[in-house]
């Protein structure tokens, strides 16, 4: 699967109501580290059937960013069963993202 772009209209359905763990990438076009992060997310989306990978552009979706206490990007948040299970701020290598997703 590819990385899915999520907006405030689709957040509940794609993230909170997902039956698989969801890795959410909060990002922006102007953010260099976010752009460095993106290939890792594309790879994970392609490799892992057991998770869903989504992207939220914080400039377009400022309400989502505010509601979810995002104040620094790149910010990766893992949601399991509609709840935040883990979070990481800043650029990290793929191994760290895999650990963040967990079992």
């Amino acid at each position: 699967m590819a990385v899915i772009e999520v907006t405030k209209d689709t957040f509940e359905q794609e993230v909170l109501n997902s039956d698989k763990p969801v890795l959410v990438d909060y990002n922006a076009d102007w953010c260099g580290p976010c752009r460095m992060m993106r290939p890792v997310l594309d790879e994970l989306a392609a490799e892992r059937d057991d998770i869903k990978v989504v992207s939220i552009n914080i400039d377009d979706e400022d309400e989502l960013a505010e509601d979810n206490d995002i104040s620094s990007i790149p910010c990766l948040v893992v949601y399991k069963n509609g709840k935040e299970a883990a979070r990481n701020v800043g650029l990290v290598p793929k191994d760290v993202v895999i650990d963040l997703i967990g079992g």
Partner: protein
Amino acid sequence: MYDIIIIGAGPAGMTAAIYARRASKSVLLLEAKSYGGQIINTPDIENYPVEAHISGFDFAQKLYEQTKALGAEFKFEKAVEIKDEGDTKTVVTVKDSYTAKAVIIATGSENRKLGVEGEDKLVGRGISYCATCDGAFYRNKVVAVVGGGNTALEDALYLADLAQTVYLIHRRDEFRGEEANAQRLRERENVKLVLNSTVTKLNAEKRLKSIEVTNKNGEVTELEVNGLFVAVGRVPENQNFASVAELDQAGYVAASENCRTKTPGIFAAGDNRVKEVRQLVTAASDGAVAATEAVKYIASLK
């Protein structure tokens, strides 16, 4: 066994790799995070020769592609130790260990932390080390900047355009940064200077709610803030290599313009070296010098 292992794939490390590959040396680059180094945070580079404007991301991408095309190998593993075994050096990473004839340390620097309890947990929940990266989250909010150098002054000016109120907290009563910037700040109505003071406590629930500031008379004031931008300088990341490379008091590698450390065959390049000017172009320049010295050193082994 590689000819040269380079620790750190920022501008210094990747430039060193280019020079080493062009001298037909085998090269392994070890990087803890992602290639590019801190330059990827810069939206627009305007002071690198030839390109009038280029984003830090594009710069890093181009440099990576150039380095890769020349045949340098990259591994994304944090190096934790260098063992000097004479003509052979072993670099230990979190995953494995690798040997080479020469090693170039190009690990750059990282943001200095405030050192106040709870700081790490609040990164991305109110605490930031990069105003241009995260300022947009604080539109019409109340923020504080800590520091007295140019970065702190520039951060405060940048945030003054976005935020409702900016407190600038500094432990002395005058700034190390340029007076012109300090003057501009004094003219801004929404900037409040909090001098002779340090941040002594962070109050948070889910995210940062307020900070406590203690002045030199020991008086404590609580400031309600949504964000705290820490701009108290940078620190080199050389501690793991202190046994093979002498460090100065601040932790920078004591290597001169020839990039040689106290250990033959181990070199330092870029922001982690003792130097006056830490810029993109001087990092690249160090990479060229260190690689050339490493190639010379390898030739001397035979």
